[in-house]
């Protein structure tokens, strides 16, 4: 499974059109995406009308080109929309879906943004190398909706809110924690495009503790936890990579160790894959949560 994805995978039926012939196809990861016959370079929102179940948005491309996509016939390239990558606003930060991980990793801290170190830390949680950072995008990582997606970890932990463009010209917004619905699934419907993610100033000004563990020192994340201690004293723990979707535990004040541990243990979204068994993920999440609690205490 990819780390970064620009196809909204939940929109695409796994088998389509060609019936039983296709059912005999075993996906092979080889070279080019030979079923793609057209790439449209988007210049304005109007160009997005071409999107359908077989024509999907292309952002960085680092994951889309790393998986067989035989069910697809075309791309609409979002990068040519030239959305400003990162925009500081009075109430926080707007991150364009097409902002690359490299751009995010280099973004300087603004006054009072105590959460800023988490930007780079979460970039390092991407399995892909710094060379992948040069092309992979924040939006693509969210839309892949992989449990280990580190941009999901970051934006969920900072109470990020997504802006979605719908095909009828309308827009809708929702928390990142609602946007991701499961392991590689999200809320997007056919034709919709993730436009941007807003991080509120309140969260950016919070102290944030970050922990990651994998089955190898820098491997694909088995658990990524971020704790956020706000000026008000409120504490939010966000568990990702260990659970099929981001899960948050919120407290009015920093909980004691036993409370936090019991609450983490009680979560039930743990899962098993090649990057860790569910019981291990739960156990190490308890360990990391406690480390974060101690760091912020």
């Amino acid at each position: 499974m990819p780390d970064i994805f620009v196809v909204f995978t939940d929109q695409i039926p796994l088998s389509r059109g060609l019936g039983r012939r296709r059912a005999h196809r075993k996906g092979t990861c080889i070279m080019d995406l030979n079923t793609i016959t057209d790439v449209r370079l988007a210049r304005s929102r109007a160009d997005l009308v071409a999107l359908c179940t077989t024509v999907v948005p292309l952002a960085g491309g680092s994951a889309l080109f790393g998986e067989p996509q035989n069910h697809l016939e075309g791309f609409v390239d979002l990068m040519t929309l030239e959305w400003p990558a990162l925009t500081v606003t009075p109430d926080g930060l707007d991150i364009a879906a097409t902002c690359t991980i490299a751009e995010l990793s280099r973004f300087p801290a603004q006054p009072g943004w105590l959460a800023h170190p988490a930007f780079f830390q979460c970039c390092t949680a991407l399995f892909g190398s710094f060379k992948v950072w040069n092309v992979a995008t924040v939006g693509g990582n969210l839309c892949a909706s992989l449990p280990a997606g580190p941009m999901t970890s970051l934006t969920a932990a900072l109470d990020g809110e997504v802006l979605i463009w719908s095909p009828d010209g309308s827009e809708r917004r929702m928390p990142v924690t609602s946007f991701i619905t499961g392991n590689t699934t999200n809320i997007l419907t056919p034709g919709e495009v993730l436009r941007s993610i807003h991080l509120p100033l309140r969260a950016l000004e919070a102290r944030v503790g970050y922990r990651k563990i994998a089955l190898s020192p820098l491997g694909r994340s088995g658990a990524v936890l971020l704790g956020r201690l706000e000026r008000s004293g409120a504490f939010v723990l966000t568990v990702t990579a260990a659970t099929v979707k981001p899960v948050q535990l919120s407290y009015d004040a920093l909980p004691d160790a036993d409370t936090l541990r019991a609450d983490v243990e009680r979560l039930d979204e743990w899962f098993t894959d090649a990057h860790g068994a569910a019981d291990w993920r739960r156990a190490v999440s308890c360990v990391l949560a406690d480390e974060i609690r101690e760091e912020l205490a």
Partner: protein
Amino acid sequence: MKFTVNGEPTEATPRAGQALRTLLRDTEHFEVKKGCDTGDCGACSVLVDGEPVHSCVYPAHRIEGHDVTTVAGLGTPDALSPVQQSFVDAAGFQCGFCTAGMVVTASTLTEADPADLPRLLKGNLCRCTGYRSIRDAFAGITNVTPRPCAASSSGPVDPAACAAHAASANPGSGCPTAARSHAAAPTTAPPAATTPAPRSVGTSERAPAGARIVTGREEYTLDVAIPGLLHLVVLRSPHAHARITRLDTSAAEALEGVAAVLTHRDSPSTLFSTARHENRTDDPDDTLVLDPVIRFRGQRVAVVVAETVGIAEAASRLIEVEYDVLPANFDPAKARQPGIPLLHSGKNPNDSRIADPETNLVAALHGEYGDIAQGFADADVTVSGTWQSHRIAATALETHASIGWLDDDGRLVLRTSSQVPFLVQKELARLFDRSLDTIRVFTARVGGGFGSKQEIQTEDIVSLAVLKTGRPVQYEMSRTDELTVVPCRHPMRVSVSLGATAAGLLTAMKVDVLSDTGAYGNHGPGVMYHSCSESISVYNSPNKRVDAEAVYTNNMPSGAFRGYGLGQVVFGIESAMDDLAIALDMNPFELRRLNAVSPTDPLVVTHVEGDDLVFGGSYGLDQCLDLAQNALATGPESGRSLPAPDGPEWSVGEGMAAAMIATIPPRGHFAEASITLGLDGRYTINAGTAEFGNGTTTVHTQLAATALNTSASLIGIRQSDTDVVPYDTGAFGSAGTVVAGKAVLAAATALAVKLGEVAEALTGIPATAWQLNSEGLSSGDRMLTLTELAAAGTEAAPAVTTVRIDGGVANAAPAARGITALGTHAGHRRSLAFNVHAMRVAVNSRTGELRILQSIQAADAGFVINPEQCRGQIEGGVAQGISTSLYEELILDAEGTVTTSVLRNYHLAQFADTPTTEVYFADTADGLGPFGAKSMSEAPFNPVAPALANAVRNATGRRPRELPFSRDRLWRLLNADTAS
């Protein structure tokens, strides 16, 4: 679309879904390699406007108007960039397939903080080196011997042995200079030179291809443009066990651009084995090129040959297949039970050489030496346990691939990624009923093997396609193919029981092995027998019993992997030996010393081994034990061991394991090699051995240079081509140095003698009065240049000169093109090499994290011909051992589908994952190998897993029994009483 590549304006029209990697290769930038096509391995790294990217996942259409720089744009072989030079100087590569991307990436990191390299290099995987030499390249460390002056006089042309190492002879750097000062092994006749001269053997001569590799100029299998090339795509089975009942290819054949669709109806009906050995009867004939019966998920169903890969893929989706799906079995423990699906029922057990096709039994070994029951009765202490090894993939960075065509004479020619071109030639001749002289098989440089290329994976189907279409055909396997259908290492369940006296002497040794060979029996018998050989005979016990079986299941086939079965059984036996040491309260090194076989002991598995396997006049296990034990004991005080992490959750422990290996595979391994002094006065070696990072090319030139008293850099080599030499069994079983090397040495020795005879015939001065040097022969003030000698040979001394060295014979004769000597070696007598690995680890009980604080390997490689290369082989083997013990695992679901089908889910050790291993060489010299050398390629891998397991046991009091020791498994092991 216009863009530039390395400054050259380029115009190309990318296809809509094309990646930059293939666009660059379409424009003949073959320096851009494919390792994974998922953005994980970094072999395809290039710069776009100076920024590094993985070109395999970079949309090609975006390159319009941009500047691409590949490794070839950074420098040329004659003008290396500083980064390229540093990789040559450090010997920072073995097969070299990852190097193009590694160098491109490194070129952007010259200002990087060395402490940040683990993160910055996580997208550059090297399967060969273990990364130490790459770290050295970043640090600007020179590991190779400096080149001689350009205008060498008749004086010494090589600097003092191992000068680079002498300057920085750290403990554990593998530098042998302090340890030894051998003369030539007694069995090797000295060359014609009579004055002592610095020898090439024993120095860290650089690999001849180095400058080409670091600049992307060295050709690998597919790095060639062939007009009219067709591409081959395989349709694979979605079922693990099925019979094809209908196969309609008409729609596929009708697609424009399709040249052929091949099915089982087109397949030769000859059963064969994809595994290759000197004796083809070693492996069961149970496989067809295309078979109407499917026995594992991913087996070939049909093949499309078309003008492009895209057309072939599209056509493969148009093939209509119906299956009668059959019950399948994935559990080797159930394979022989009644009612379990039979995979090869009906095949003739004698013709196919399957032990019992009616019970899924491929091969079995049941035997007893002494009286095992009495052995246990005599024991004061007994220990027993069961250990399970897992499925792992060789994961050479270059995937299997070949290109085939018909040459002007109508010969079938294959350019292929193989360790065994001559064995492939023989089997293709049999399969397609052609004579040997109508088939030529050769390799370019091969991008890694580790056993997986001792196997026909592409050549059979490409041959069929070429013969069907008459056109050139290419088949390139994907990384997913490598991880899902190319044979993996045999998973084995190994039960071991040991009995010993209170003093620690073994009285009984009982080993039970169940090997899962998967759907086909390729390498199944050989791996099973080998797994129970040196692993058991390394210890003396008056009573031994072995019960081993290899069985068919509907899992992906298993095959050859570095160590060839030994690693799996060594894991069990060395773990059991550790348990025995604990039960006896004895030091584990001491327990090995007490029981290890010595040159005066017989080698026993279930009977005394045949006399082809001998100690060869060298024995270094005792030294290896001492070296490893001492390095481990002094690690903390010397600073070579990392400090233990703080915290009560961490526990620290030490572990060790020993391993023995025969230097040559059994039952014959043949090599013929020639060396020619051309009319231009240059030497050229012709050898059969493929170069895939094994370093034998370097070694062969060093052997010849030493016999001819010249510099290795003055010797050219042509290799791994059935047209170049008459025969070579191939590069497996670590035979490249000790078999083919011996043939090269024989040839060079004979040539040196012949040159003296020519001089005598020309001048009347006796042959023995001439001294050979890099310029020619000299006697007093008389000088005959090599060019003069080559030209005069035919008339002056036309007779054939025969020279024998121990184990080899060579004939030298002048001919129109110069003087050629052809040497042969039969590899009949085999010696033994040893490895001892020791580890200090810290284990975190809360997370299962394991940190290697110190890693040590002591090796008995005999005389070390090239210290830097041999060190690299050991480090690479250890790194593979660590990677496969801690991280790598092919995971299959309940239907036999491999779910770890891309590298991000099959974790190869990165730079960050690989500790530096201290390497120590025993001071021995073998009587069989050239100049006293022994093989040292597979062996270093074998003791690593048990050394790690024993260190975990020592640290935590709990013993891991199942590979890999992943963090989640270790966490469970340590929390078994509390985990739910």
